[in-house]
């Protein structure tokens, strides 16, 4: 049977063999944890502890500010030694709570086990919000916001994203293999919240072991395991929806416009912890990999561990890395150094050597339209990029630059090495700036 997928896309070498067979290991605690107060899309949290105060593992240290915001919690027990600006994966130093672990690693006594059957769906959403659960695929959008769609847009299909189409990353893959019960419990909880009729877990066909395991465990449940064609960006929200349901999210719309909600499988596991155990999101699985690291691993890390600590746990560096990427190679954030902490959206740490970085000079566009073929959003990257380069903001917008999901497929296929996605991002920023100015 032909596997389902979307139009366009690319086939980069997936490089998952480094870590896909390695079981998740617990990462030992470092001497210092730097927990940033801004880890999600939306308003940053505000520190609610003081320097010198002792905090328990899971205690709230930053309270949410506004609806699209979540609280931040202590990743271990210890003393707050500083609240100050520290280097952050977003590039500029941002406020963070620095914790010196006391080695006890004891949970806060406020956390308790709850029977989910006794909760209404609103109470359930509130528990998820309090636990600071965000989308764990990388964008870190607060989960409780996604879980509260307006009543006029009912969700009939609930999709779970186990695609993991980014090369190198294997954290979701290992989660599905080793913690399938946590994942499936979260799936059931989310289904209860949405009241969705159809529940699908989409998995790329290059993870046959995960597909087989989940199929076996879901044999009697009404959860559909859907193997998908191996192609990047299959795990992008809109592409996954198209592959699973045949529906296209309208331009400028959200998945709920077509009656679909999408969550990552790791987010489902975090929802389980939040609801059943009352445990906040303070740890996640992160793939530390790449040719510049001695021993690539899948690590269970605490939020706030520095990248250099992760590198140390993985046996150190083979050589000075040419590029440090938090996330996958296609959509991750390049980092300035190893002194930044991991945050809730950090699904992987990729260290490339100098020789692995392709940096060929840009040539003229030869109108081959490979970028148009590759674009999963059916845009014309070369045209938008040309407009964006000349700062023609209106034309950039007219050619639907705002629909670009910044997957980088266009830049990947361009034979002239034109920085297409970079130009489009530049154009999108200009369009947004213009809209902001119009409002003022």
């Amino acid at each position, binding site marked *: 049977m032909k596997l389902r997928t979307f139009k366009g896309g690319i086939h980069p070498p997936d490089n998952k063999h480094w870590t896909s067979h390695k079981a998740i290991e617990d990462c030992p605690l470092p001497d210092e944890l730097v927990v940033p107060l801004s880890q999600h899309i939306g308003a940053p949290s505000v520190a609610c502890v003081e320097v010198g105060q002792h905090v328990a593992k899971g205690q709230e240290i930053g309270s949410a500010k506004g609806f699209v915001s979540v609280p931040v919690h202590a990743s271990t027990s210890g003393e707050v030694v500083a609240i100050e600006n520290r280097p952050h994966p977003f590039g500029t130093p941002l406020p963070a709570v620095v914790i010196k672990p006391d080695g006890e690693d004891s949970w806060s006594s406020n956390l308790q086990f709850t029977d989910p059957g006794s909760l209404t769906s609103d109470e359930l959403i509130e528990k998820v919000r309090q636990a600071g659960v965000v989308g764990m695929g990388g964008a870190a959008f607060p989960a409780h916001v996604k879980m509260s769609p307006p009543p006029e847009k009912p969700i009939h299909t609930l999709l779970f994203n186990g695609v993991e189409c980014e090369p190198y990353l294997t954290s979701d893959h290992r989660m599905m293999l080793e913690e399938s019960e946590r994942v499936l419990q979260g799936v059931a909880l989310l289904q209860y919240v949405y009241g969705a009729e159809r529940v699908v877990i989409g998995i790329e066909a290059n993870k046959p072991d995960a597909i087989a395991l989940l199929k076996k465990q879901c044999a009697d449940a009404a959860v559909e395991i859907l193997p998908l064609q191996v192609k990047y960006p299959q795990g992008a929200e809109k592409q996954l929806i198209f592959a699973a349901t045949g529906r296209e999210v309208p331009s400028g719309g959200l998945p709920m416009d077509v009656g679909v909600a999408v969550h990552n499988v790791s987010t489902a596991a975090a929802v389980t912890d939040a609801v059943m155990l009352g445990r906040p999101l303070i740890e996640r699985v992160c793939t530390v990999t790449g040719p510049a690291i001695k021993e690539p691993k899948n690590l269970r890390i605490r939020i706030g561990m520095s990248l250099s600590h992760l590198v140390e746990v993985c046996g150190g560096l083979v050589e000075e890395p040419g590029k440090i990427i938090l996330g996958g190679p296609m959509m991750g954030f390049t980092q300035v150094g190893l002194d930044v902490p991991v945050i809730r959206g950090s699904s992987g740490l990729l260290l490339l050597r100098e020789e692995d970085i392709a940096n060929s000079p840009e040539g003229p566009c030869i109108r081959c339209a490979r970028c148009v073929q590759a674009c999963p959003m059916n845009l014309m990257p070369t045209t938008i990029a040309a407009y964006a380069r000349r700062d023609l903001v209106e034309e950039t917008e007219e050619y639907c630059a705002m629909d670009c999901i910044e997957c980088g497929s266009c830049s990947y296929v361009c034979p002239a090495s034109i920085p297409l996605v*970079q130009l489009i991002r530049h154009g999108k*920023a200009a369009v947004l700036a213009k809209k902001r100015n119009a409002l003022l």
Partner: protein
Amino acid sequence: MLAAILSLGCIGMVAAIALGIAAKKFAVEVDPRELAAMEVLPGINCGACGFPGCAGYAKALVTGKAEPNLCPPGGAELMTKLARILGVEAIVMARQTAVVLCQGDNRKAQLKFRYLGLEDCNAAQRIAGGPKACPGGCLGLASCQRACPFDAIEMTADGLAVISREKCTGCRKCVAVCPRDVIRMTPYESSVHVMCNSHDKGAAVRKYCQVGCIGCHICHKTVPEAYKLEDFLATVVYEQDAQAFEAIPKCPTKCIRDFNEGYPEGSTFLPINNDKSDAA
């Protein structure tokens, strides 16, 4: 043959009369002053006046929505001409010139990381606040040079923007495009500037730049009225900078520059007011 000539002639006559009537009837009245203003305006549509192009400004002038001193590229001469056309008193705006308040090129200032992205300062600034370690320094990716309609900006070989005092008309396009606010409008008469835009403390500045202002107060102590210090950064008080040049030799990081003596290192622009020394 005759019929053809006559019929075509008649059609031509009728059409000509119709056009003539239409031209009279639908004539758009243009204020002659607007036309006159269009004649004298530079016609480069730079937008410095805040109106859509020179035609827009001319229209705003005659409808009384704009003052005749809003065209920096035209200078004082144009302002008087416009005032005469409009029949008002000329209030001449002092000539202003844009200056890049930074001398930290790629040899003198440290980089945080190697930037491989787009050749555009705004794009670079969005990635971790730009590759330059200094939060205020010139990024050197020539966004201002591309924005300048007068070819007044050059990039040195080591990646520093330098603006020609003579070619700059004060249209502020570069100021608008610069993501780091390192370009400032200054009075043309003032040629002495503190060439730094970093508000970091002296120790931090010394770490990433050889020629940055460390906030040592020496310039302020030498000529108190001509310099002020805010957040560890000295700036020239342009209204009272007559003696500002006296502090130049005292500055420990050579951060103060008199543009009449020379442009920053690497620039091909030559100071025009060399006659100062001749007169002395």
